[in-house]
């Protein structure tokens, strides 16, 4: 690791969304927000309080929320929908598919409590398939920022992008380490640490885990290149291929199912352009369960130690 990363504070990415939405309330008069009875959980209260006319409480009716959002675009509004990731995707897949993606409506689907780190609520709420579901839809952009600052910046950036977006974030307080003044560039992977022995590609909460793994790896004499893929679709193939040209092997890390996730996208990219050994740190075809977020990451093998182990395996395969 050539770079050090300073933890500014510990914050939940959903609060980054709330802060970004609050700024949009001031700067973008056409931004409207809808929520399906989870205003507090989604941190949408500030927007609601400051823009009551532009906030729509829809109740526990997510299908209707997606349709309302599609309709609000007709007339120039930029709707941000808010609910848990499970109810933002799987529950309303056909509504998103027909009324938003196929119709190419300018709706921003903002999804909190994604993945295992939702914790104690258990598998009913811990969706691990949402990235796959959303990236399969034509017209859909899929964004999964890594910390509070990046989630706030992404929230603001997608308002100025025309087209449907899925924005994924989470519940727990996690290290907030990215530059608060960094401009969020949709579709541009970011090399966090330049290395030479392996490329670690991570998204969401797993980016910090990758940095932690990087510190351990350096002590073992392995110098990793670490890439933050905050935009899973469109995928920044160029940055990844350039890195793999140098390192010759890859580990991916995500709080998502192996099938359909970031690792899948990377595998396609490598197979088409630069076949190379790949190890995926992701949930392997199983549902989660109740527990503390950190306990679950360890139990389901998507923790720092699992990234370190995957790197050691993949380097052997070079």
């Amino acid at each position, binding site marked *: 690791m050539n770079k050090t990363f300073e933890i500014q504070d510990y914050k939940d990415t959903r609060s980054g969304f709330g802060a970004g939405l609050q700024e949009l309330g001031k700067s973008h008069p056409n931004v409207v927000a809808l929520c399906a009875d989870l205003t507090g959980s989604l941190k949408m209260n500030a927007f609601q309080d400051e823009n009551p006319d532009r906030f729509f409480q829809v*109740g526990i009716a997510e299908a209707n929320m997606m349709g309302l959002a599609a309709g609000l675009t007709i007339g120039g509004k930029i709707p941000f929908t808010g609910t848990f990731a499970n109810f933002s995707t799987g529950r309303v897949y056909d509504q998103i598919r027909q009324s938003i993606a196929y119709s190419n409506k300018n709706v921003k689907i903002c999804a909190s409590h994604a993945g295992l780190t939702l914790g104690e609520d258990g598998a009913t709420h811990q969706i691990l398939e949402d990235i796959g579901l959303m990236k399969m839809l034509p017209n859909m952009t899929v964004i999964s920022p890594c910390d509070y600052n990046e989630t706030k910046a992404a929230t603001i950036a997608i308002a100025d992008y025309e087209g449907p977006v899925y924005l994924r974030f989470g519940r727990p307080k996690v290290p907030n380490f990215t530059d608060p003044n960094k401009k969020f560039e949709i579709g541009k992977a970011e090399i966090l640490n330049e290395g030479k022995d392996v490329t670690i590609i991570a998204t969401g909460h797993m980016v910090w885990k990758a940095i932690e793994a990087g510190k351990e790896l350096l002590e073992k004499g392995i110098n990793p290149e670490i890439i933050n893929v905050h935009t899973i679709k469109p995928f920044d193939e160029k940055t990844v291929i350039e890195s793999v040209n140098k390192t010759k092997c890859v580990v991916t890390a995500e709080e998502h199912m192996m099938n359909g996730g970031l690792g899948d996208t990377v595998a396609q990219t490598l197979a088409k352009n630069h076949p190379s050994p790949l190890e995926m740190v992701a949930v392997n075809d199983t549902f989660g369960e109740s527990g503390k977020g950190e306990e679950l990451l360890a139990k389901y093998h998507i923790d720092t130690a699992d990234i370190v182990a995957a790197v050691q395996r993949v380097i052997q395969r070079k």
Partner: protein
Amino acid sequence: MEVATTTEISSQIRRDIIRMVTDVQSGHPGGSLGCTDFFTVLFFEIMNIDPTNFTIDGIGEDLFFLSNGHISPVYYSTLAHKGYFDKSELATFRKINSRLQGHPSPAKGLPGIRVATGSLGQGLSVAIGAALAKKLNGDENIVYSLHGDGELQEGQVWEAAMYAAGNKVDNIIATVDYNHKQIDGDIDDVLPMGDLAQKWEAFGWQVLEMDGHDHAAIKNTLQKAKSMCGNGKPVVIIMTTIMGKGVDFMMHTHKWHGSAPSEEQAEQALSQLEETLGDY
């Protein structure tokens, strides 16, 4: 030039429907024929629209959403005769590279279409969303929508109904095509829905009923519905129709919901429908 009457327009639209579905041996003639009179009166006598300057946003004009997208033939023919696109394009219905998809979609840029429909139950939510946008924009025009009766079996419709009444969305007029039929048979055999008017009333809507084949009644009821807008409650019209209306052998059966007539049957159907505005 003499302006065509709505009766003449309806007759031509019905001819178009038969010719379109026969040509590609697919599509949904039954509901299309049943809603022809409604489409004609709504588009030619009621709505404030600007067909030659179509925009998705539709600011400053009325909007229409077809939630039961499978009756696209009547929608396309109406749009063409109203001037959204040339009627010659009706010949491309359901064919490769056409803007006239089997179910309506804005994906190919067909003027008049603002959202994709076909997977049922989604149109009321979209129409209510568009009505909310009109309110935010200070646009006093009205949003119209049409729904199949069988479509009301989809739960999302009632989520939307509850939302609109609970939030005083009073610039929308939804119409239900009550022909009592769906693909598998009579509604009462597939899934009885009880008293539709009472259901909508219980959900907080103002309910009107009309005969969907009497042009004067359609016009009067739509005008009455407009006068009921702006008072804090949404409006729904339960419209009684006959699936297959206008073609004797297509009426009073669900058989023609989603199947096309043979060439011979089409000839028989067309002999019952006067060519008034010229076939495409």
